């Protein structure tokens, strides 16, 4: 295994695509010539939320009190980030947390005088997307935790996103307001009610400019369609429908209709004792509106064509790698469960993440993946203890970069991994507060197995399994990534000389 890999890029990456440019300029990572400096941190947000509480009014005392309690090592459960997602232009970045909040970050406008600020994001809007609920019929608590956020392609001046907890998907509109009506008849300037007898003339309220306000409003609530927990949502390229997926079913919704959804996949056996596998994730093809894929806990992926039948219980492609009998163990089935499936941007490949590896599948080849990357193979010997502390059930996500040439996924000890598909080079980076000075260049990390530990290597036994990076996202066409580490959100970009 190679040691320190310089992570570089060429200067051309500074080129931003012109607004509305449909074919963004791709650039390779890491470039071959080795002129760049590596990944630098541009921002870090701890408990990314009410940075400007003013919008939330004083009424929410709970949050304010919380903020006093927070020291640097203490995070309440509710602050743990549960999903991160860039929108289709990369202009906005959304995070959701276990407390049901969504925080949207907006990218700083690029300024000529401070070109280094190009990757900086600031809080744009914060809102409570889901509240804890109680299902009285089943005596079950429904957590407010945001399981997934998906942005809709921008359709007008406002932004739209779908957020989901275990049961309910909501469509949020995030819009700006910079005018407000003034000059009421019944109220005076301070908002006090005027004595009706003093109203002697009529005036028409007018809209006056005011400070920019960002508001989030729930436009649609898609509920009551899932018996099990929703693990993923995906918007169709026809921009008319989306799917929501729980452990056993996939439902198809029209974005405009909330009282009806169509069940298109149902793997629930008549007798629940015969249940052998569950759906872990599902996604629509980025271009073909009729194709979607779903992954299972048995390590397989099924591709369905909605043109063939109204019910997609029968798949049209089935991707599975035969198990190697040599490595079979008690944990084989658990570690082969797929935690995330993602189509590449060009729609040719599927990427899946299981516990130890990331695999890339060619849609034309069903019997084995075209590429397999070891994420943290050094854990293979520690599966027993990972089983005991439940870590083996962690669900890591995986992402493609804009040009599908690099893939990224998380690991333990706040490490995350990148694999260059062309050069086959890989790197381990750490998202940590210790080196969290802005503009600090991330040092590649290395985990050593066995006795001799070189300087700046970390022993497998000293890895902190409570610090895990499950959720990451990559800017749609630039080398900017966002990494969620427990209650911290890190944004990194490749260093510009």
């Amino acid at each position, binding site marked *: 295994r190679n040691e320190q890999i310089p992570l570089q890029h060429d200067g051309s990456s500074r080129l931003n695509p012109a607004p509305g440019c449909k074919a963004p300029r791709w650039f390779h990572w890491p470039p071959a010539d080795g002129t760049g400096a590596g990944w630098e941190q541009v921002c870090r947000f701890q408990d990314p939320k009410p940075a400007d509480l003013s919008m939330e009014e004083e009424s929410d005392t709970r949050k304010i009190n919380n903020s006093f309690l927070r020291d640097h090592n203490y995070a309440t459960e509710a602050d743990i980030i549960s999903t991160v997602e860039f929108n289709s232009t990369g202009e906005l970045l959304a995070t959701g947390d276990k407390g049901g909040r969504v925080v949207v970050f907006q990218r700083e406008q690029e300024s000529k005088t401070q070109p280094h600020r190009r990757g900086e994001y600031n809080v744009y809007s914060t809102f409570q997307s889901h509240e804890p609920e109680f299902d009285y019929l089943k005596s079950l608590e429904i957590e407010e935790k945001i399981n997934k956020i998906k942005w809709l392609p921008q359709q*007008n001046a406002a932004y739209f996103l779908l957020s989901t907890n275990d049961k309910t998907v909501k469509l949020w509109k995030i819009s700006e307001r910079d005018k407000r009506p003034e000059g009421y008849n019944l109220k005076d300037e301070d908002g006090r009610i005027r004595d009706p007898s003093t109203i002697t003339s009529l005036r028409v309220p007018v809209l006056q400019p005011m400070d920019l306000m960002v508001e989030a409003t729930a436009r649609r609530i898609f509920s009551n369609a899932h018996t099990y927990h929703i693990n993923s949502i995906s918007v169709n390229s*026809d921009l008319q429908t989306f799917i929501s997926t729980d452990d056993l079913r996939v439902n198809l919704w029209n974005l405009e209709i909330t009282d009806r959804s169509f069940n298109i996949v149902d793997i629930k056996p008549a007798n629940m004792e015969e249940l052998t596998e569950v759906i872990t994730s599902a996604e629509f093809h980025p271009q073909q509106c009729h194709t979607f894929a779903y992954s299972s806990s048995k390590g397989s992926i099924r591709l369905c064509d909605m043109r063939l039948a109204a019910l997609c219980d029968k798949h049209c492609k089935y991707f599975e790698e035969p198990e190697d009998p040599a490595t079979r163990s008690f944990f084989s089935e658990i570690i082969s469960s797929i935690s995330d499936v993602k189509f590449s941007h060009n729609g040719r490949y599927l990427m899946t993440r299981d516990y130890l590896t990331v695999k890339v599948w060619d849609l034309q080849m069903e019997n084995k993946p075209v590429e397999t990357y070891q994420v943290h193979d050094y854990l293979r010997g520690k599966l027993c203890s990972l089983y005991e502390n439940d870590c083996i059930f962690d669900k890591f996500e995986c992402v493609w970069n804009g040009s599908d040439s690099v893939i990224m996924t998380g690991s333990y000890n706040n490490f995350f991994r990148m694999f260059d598909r062309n050069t086959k080079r890989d790197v381990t980076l750490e998202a940590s507060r210790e080196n969290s000075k802005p503009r600090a260049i991330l040092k590649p990390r290395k985990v050593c197995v066995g006795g001799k530990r070189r300087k700046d290597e970390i022993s497998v036994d000293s890895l902190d399994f409570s610090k895990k990076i499950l959720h990451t996202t990559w800017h749609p066409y630039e080398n900017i990534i966002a990494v969620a580490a427990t209650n911290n959100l890190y944004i990194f970009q490749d260093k510009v000389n």
Partner: protein
Amino acid sequence: MAGADGDDSLYPIAVLIDELRNEDVQNDTETQLYSLKMYSIIHIFYNTIYDEDEVLLALAEQLGNFTMLVGGPEYVHCLLPPLESLATVEETVVRDKAVESLRKISQEHSPVDLEVHFEPLVKRLASGDWFTSRTSACGLFSVCYPRVSSTVKAEIRQHFRTLCSDDTPMVRRAAASKLGEFAKVLEPEYVKSDIISLFTALASDEQDSVRLLAVEACVSIATLLPQEDLETLVMPTLRQAAEDKSWRVRYMVADKFSELQKAVGSEITKNDLVPAFQNLLKDCEAEVRAAAANKVKEFCENLPEDNREQIIMTHILPCVKELVSDTNQHVKSALASVIMGLSTILGKDNTIEHLLPLFLAQLKDECPEVRLNIISNLDCVNEVIGIRQLSQSLLPAIVELAEDAKWRVRLAIIEYMPLLAGQLGVEFFDEKLNTLCMAWLIDHVYAIREAATCNLMKLVEKFGAEWAQNTIVPKVLGMANDPNYLHRMTTLFCINALSEACGQEITTKQMLPVVLKMSNDQVANVRFNVAKSLQKIGPVLDSNALQTEVKPVLEKLATDSDMDVKYFAQEAITLQS
């Protein structure tokens, strides 16, 4: 309020204006709109875009009726800016309403105003940055096209062409859904030169949601073209759509089949549509088969008369026979809802020979919906072959449905009882079905008991008071002594329903004594229903009975220990006095 100096008259208007702009919008849309109507000052609603959807929706609708309020047709163009804004919001219903209003007021523009004010708006929308405005533009081309100069017409055609190949599927869908309408206002030469190519392109769009809308356009386009051009210009696309890879497109073809059939004419129907229809009836997707099955009767009806029977017998009937034993119950029930209609088309002999076995098979289907659909359409068959042919199989089917475990099924069959009784005649009914009707009265589901009560009333209306007196009334009144108070209440409900149909004599002589006796019931629910019944049957009784028999009982009930009994008794007393 102080003073009569006219100030107080301003107050309600002040409330209305403030409400209109109130930030916490209540659902008091009506009030807001009323105020709007009074204060149609353009610049208020010019900036309304921030408001709630319901307000915007109502606003978009109302602005279409504003012509007179802004000073008549010559000023109507000042409504365009607010409607233009509304036509770009993200909420589809609001946009659609705004477009509808724009279409409406376009008619009120003079030709000059149309070119000066309206047409530029359409162009702006058509070249807007966001898809929302471009989708709205699609619905406006057809209303302004006929009334503008030929240069502007050329521009409009160009805009429409551009939108048909828009990047976003939403705009292409909007264009596809308006294609037929636009084709109708175009000059015939442009239909051929422009529309056909757009139609072909949309019908082979990569998104099936666009392709299926092209099928709809196919109907209007086919009606516009001369018969000789259909074969070359429309049929290739239609054939392709009928065999599309996506079931949704084929579904759309099946769903629009009757319209398509009328649009393309009898010759093409014979050569092309018959085989296409056969394929749809045999489609691998149940949704498509069900949609096609729904069209069987209409399709057969519209076949050219000269060889209709031959086409049905050789091409359609074999497929129909297969569908009778389809694996999907929706397909079977779709077929069952129309199959009886074939008997009028095929005549007595064919019905007996070919259709009757199918009816009988469907009457024995495992799915109750199929059986219900057959039974609900019995009247078609009755006209052709008489119902006796079926009665042997009909009876077991009815009995089974009447005792189905699902109460909704029982409810459905009850609703067909009056119809069946009419078809089968009073003797058959008395002999076979009367017991069923009475059994429903003691069903354990209230909805069934209620429907059964209503059913009795309809039967009495059909068979007359004498029949009621002999067959129904004794049984109903017998239930008044039932140990179950729910059944005793059913007696009261039946009396409520039947009194009018039975007339004064039966009501006074037979029913009233029973009701009065029940006023001593130990269950309060029964007692207050007695009060309600007395109120209900009051108008049927003569005044003597009211005074001497009803009134004392009501007065007694009005002093009942139970609050509800008292209440209803008092209500009855006040109403009768």
